[in-house]
């Protein structure tokens, strides 16, 4: 009798085969495979739609700044430039603020305040981008045009960055909206990272006489620096891919203005504004080419962030 029990324990699946188990396993596995297929299908379909533009322009598409439906000449340079400038500028504004919020929520805030303030910061991420865009174009943009941009222009106009004419749409308003979107993402990840720093390390630094800031700079930030990089990359991916709010705020013109008051366009924003009404088949295909570039950017960003996170997990041994 005891031997029977032993075999049962040693080979539970073999000994007891159930059709229900198999069915659940197959259906659940199919769901997981479906997600992988979707991802592959997205890449395939976008490449397929872009094929006409790919064969017409090749890699020259990336270095040409022409976008002309009349002559059927298209290039992505200005849009890549616009995407890079708006995303990087938004990151420069957002990352210090977001990490500071993460530190506040993890190290400084009184215990009773942590949950509500953390929730409010996360609610900021829940506001739909079209609502932020509406607010941006009708309230923040006019405010920037009337107050902030003239101030920057009058006082720092000798710097080319601030030399243009104030406008309610353009690079600066678009960057501000992107900043609002990126801050909550980076803030909540950095809060989790700072929470994960072992408290004996923190206590040790404090016991050695560090101020709280020295503890953060000397112990906490070095501990989580790789994670912070991943958080920044995820913020970047969010900023790169935002179409709706940016298309409302950026002005939608080609060019690479030297002033942050100037209007430009990004990959995602041009897709939102032109894909539906494209004049020629080649224009539609060129827009799909833009989507392909955007997809590659966001895949690279997300993969590298995931790899960093995985490396951290492995180092921590969890």
């Amino acid at each position: 009798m005891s031997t029977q029990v032993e075999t049962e324990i040693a080979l539970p699946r073999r000994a007891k085969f159930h059709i229900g188990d198999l069915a659940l396993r197959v259906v659940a596995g199919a769901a997981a495979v479906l997600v992988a297929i979707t991802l592959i299908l997205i890449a395939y379909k976008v490449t397929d739609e872009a094929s006409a533009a790919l064969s017409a322009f090749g890699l020259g598409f990336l270095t040409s700044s022409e976008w002309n439906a009349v002559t059927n000449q298209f290039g992505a340079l200005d849009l890549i430039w616009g995407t890079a400038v708006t995303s990087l500028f938004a990151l420069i504004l957002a990352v210090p603020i977001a990490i500071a919020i993460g530190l506040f929520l993890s190290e400084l805030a009184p215990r009773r305040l942590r949950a509500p303030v953390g929730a409010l910061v996360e609610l900021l991420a829940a506001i739909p981008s079209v609502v932020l865009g509406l607010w941006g174009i009708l309230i923040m943009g006019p405010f920037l045009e009337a107050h902030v941009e003239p101030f920057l222009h009058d006082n720092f106009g000798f710097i080319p960055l601030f030399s243009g004419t104030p406008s309610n749409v353009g690079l600066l308003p678009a960057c501000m909206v992107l900043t609002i979107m990126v801050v909550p993402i980076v803030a909540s990840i950095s809060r989790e990272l700072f929470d994960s720093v072992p408290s004996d390390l923190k206590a040790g630094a404090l016991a050695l006489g560090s101020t709280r800031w020295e503890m953060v700079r000397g112990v906490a930030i070095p501990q989580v620096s790789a994670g912070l990089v991943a958080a920044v990359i995820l913020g970047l991916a969010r900023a790169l891919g935002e179409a709706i709010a940016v298309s409302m705020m950026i002005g939608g013109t080609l060019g690479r203005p030297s002033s942050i008051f100037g209007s430009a366009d990004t990959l995602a924003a041009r897709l939102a504004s032109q894909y539906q009404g494209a004049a020629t088949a080649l224009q539609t295909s060129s827009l799909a080419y833009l989507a392909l570039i955007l997809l590659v950017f966001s895949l690279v960003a997300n993969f590298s962030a995931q790899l960093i996170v995985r490396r951290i997990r492995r180092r921590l041994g969890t």
Partner: protein
Amino acid sequence: MSAEVNPLTVVTPRARRRKLVGVMMEVIATAAAILAVVVLLIVVVSVARKGLPALNADFFTKSPVPFGQTGGGIKNAIIGTIIMTGMATLIAVPVGVLIAIFNTEFASPAIAEMVRLVLNVLAGVPTIVIGIFIFGLLVVGNGQSAIAASIGLSIVMVPLIARATEEVLLLVPPSLREAGMALGATRARTVITVILPTAVGGIVTATIVAVARAAGETAPLLFTSSIFANTVTTDVHQAMASIPLTIFVDSESPSVADQQTAWAAALVLMAGVLIMGIIGRALSLRTRRQIERAR
């Protein structure tokens, strides 16, 4: 004796500077948190102030009137958003929960890690690219439809639901699973009668959060359900109006009445999304506490 100074109480200039830097940094961090909360308040208050005057019963119960006339509402958009988000939820919840079950019950650690990676990457695909994908896959040749839009929205929802559900399933105490198996239940039966009921609070939370996200998405609808009539449709093979698209289109209109509509629609959408966000958060805290108590 009187000239002697306790070395521990001496404040050197260096110590004063270190303390000053520390205090400055703490002030900056606090200010950053206040800034984020203030921005949230500014957005919420200004949308409410602009939107409230245009909100009345007609806004919810009437469809838009032809250009130039006054009155009317966004009933068609509200119904469209509810139907399309609902269909997307019907697709995304089973798929997401099944993926979570696969990862926690059946997959080897390496495979589970792969699935997680794919989910995270899918979550990172820009929603406008998803819109173009669905357009090429389903709209070309068939025309726009609420179904196509829902499938697009479900692609946004699946990673959110799968990841959050997996987290809750991992919280379910192993002793419950072992007890189910020890009673002679099969793995499938244990999952369905023991594990899922324990985790149902978490799955509901994940669903609410995902619905809040999908209801506010504009980009997946832009090419899949944007050419619609000004009347209520319940035919899912037709394009439907939606609240996000109403805001997007009306915000670019020079007409003050259209901008009014955009503000009021934004208020309805934002209120819905924020309330769902708050409920989701409260529920998730409760579920976590409940499961921890069960441990």
